[in-house]
């Protein structure tokens, strides 16, 4: 994707405190993105389009089949909504960490490291893609529509789950973004490799895991934990038993899984940064 080299962030002034420095980074980024006004508007629309097409794909597939992996369209849309909202929000907040390979390759990461601010928050704020706000909002709309039309039997527990599960899923996707980005500390041309887990995870979580089979399902759903993003919370919301036989409380496990994922991602980031050696360019 053609994205201009980000504007050089305002130099961090050690006397003004970290918060001001971060705010300056964010402000510079917002201004540079809005500089090309037409492109910014197309960006806003285009980012909605990405999620729109994901939803459209589900609708088209349900146009030619009644059920998918034992789930109806209404039930599947709850899965889609959880996944779409969580991925878009994580992508907005942390997703641009996926540009780390470019920073490592061009040596810009050296500049980030010598500044008296945390490397991860800098990278995130330097590039915070304001244009992706539209997509997160659209994801939220899909989620709201889906749970509204799925005929859910609301209990206080389910209302709480509806709040907690999407947030846990955001944390989970954010952790996946950070963890996969660290590969670039070892393997510079790894951008696409990370995509297979981040965007692959998004696609995986857009359908009930009963759709998949064999070791592939075991690896993505439980090995990496993607089943807890949307599938199990959706089962708990819908009050359906898991066709694969896991107990009902698993639907509530997503915050725990998200915390574990965040821990793994933080550890991977620390180890990765220590391993980092400048490309020297």
């Amino acid at each position: 994707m053609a994205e201009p080299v980000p504007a050089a962030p305002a130099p961090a002034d050690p006397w003004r405190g970290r918060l001001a420095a971060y705010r300056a980074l964010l402000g510079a980024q917002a201004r540079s993105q809005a500089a090309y006004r037409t492109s910014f508007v197309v960006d806003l629309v285009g980012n909605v389009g990405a999620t729109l097409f994901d939803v459209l794909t589900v609708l088209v597939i349900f146009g030619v089949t009644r059920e998918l992996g034992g789930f109806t369209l209404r039930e599947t849309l709850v899965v889609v909504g959880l996944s779409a909202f969580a991925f878009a929000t994580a992508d907005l907040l942390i997703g641009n960490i996926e540009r780390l390979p470019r920073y490592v390759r061009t040596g810009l990461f050296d500049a980030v490291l010598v500044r008296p601010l945390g490397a991860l928050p800098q990278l995130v704020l330097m590039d915070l893609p304001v244009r992706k706000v539209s997509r997160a909002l659209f994801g939220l709309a899909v989620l709201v529509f889906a749970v509204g039309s799925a005929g859910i039997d609301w209990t206080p527990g389910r209302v709480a789950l509806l709040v907690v599960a999407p947030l846990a899923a955001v944390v989970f996707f954010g952790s996946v973004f950070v963890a996969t980005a660290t590969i670039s500390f070892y393997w510079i041309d790894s951008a696409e490799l990370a995509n297979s887990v981040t965007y692959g995870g998004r696609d995986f979580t857009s359908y009930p895991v009963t759709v998949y089979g064999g070791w592939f399902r075991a690896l993505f759903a439980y090995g990496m934990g993607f089943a807890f993003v949307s599938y199990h919370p959706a089962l708990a919301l819908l009050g359906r038993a898991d066709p694969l036989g896991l107990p009902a409380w698993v639907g509530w496990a997503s915050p725990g899984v998200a915390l574990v994922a965040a821990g793994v991602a933080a550890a991977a980031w620390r180890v990765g940064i220590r391993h980092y050696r400048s490309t020297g360019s």
Partner: protein
Amino acid sequence: MALLRMEGNGVGSVTATVPLPTSTNVILWFRTFGAIAASGFRRYATYRQAAVAGVVTNTVFGFLRCYVLLAAAGAAGSVGGYDRAQLATFVWVGQGLLAVILLWGWTDLADRIRTGEVAADLLRPVHPVTSYLATDLGRAGWAAVTRLLPPVLTGPLFFDVYLPRRPATPALFVVSVLIAVVLCFGCRYLVNATAYWLHDVRGPMILWTLGAGVLAGLYFPLRFLPDPVLVPLWLLTPFPSLLQTPLDVLVERDPAATQLTLVGLQLGWAVALLALCRLVQRRAERRMVVQGG
């Protein structure tokens, strides 16, 4: 006549769209074209890590899409006119073709326009559309080896795939892929060329990335769509000719006559888009001002 105004350094009417004496020699033209294509092949052959990473990604998405489409086929065993084996072939070959036609991620021309380096391309005695096309064919050759083969070989290990039964199909498939590469190049060139007017091509690029993926048949076979949507899409836009046509040819979705018609339509689009590329390039050169020297 198109003029490239290089203000400030006195170069008057040097332009790539005026045929120079060298390009009238057909043999020499082919030799030049071949040399540029070979250099394109070599250039992309240096990105080995990227090729491996790309193959892994295509393979993961191969599994994802294959499982979803097979689930759609369900117990009935067929959907949209494809049986399970045809769906598997459609998905896995599609994942490979994606990199051969290079649907996404080509911003070479736009970057050179933004930085002004495109001025150097215009000074060469080869038309820019021709030289970029040659490079792209070389790139596609490299991708056919490194990006198409792995998913095509991986798919059959895990799924029952469909192998063509008519003797003419493999040859027609190769022709169709070749046309798809040229057509996709034309589309990408036009999207990139908007940089002559817009400077920042992020917007058009996003629209292209979104539109091309879904309308070319990557996310789901376009035959899933109802006819009132499908027919105009196929006839009036180049998108289905990018992926859906070669894949439908390979899995023999239609009788031989229909296959030929679809490939003919594809060829028409490719010729039209290349002509449009040259037209756009000429218009761009007429208004372009290269700053500095």
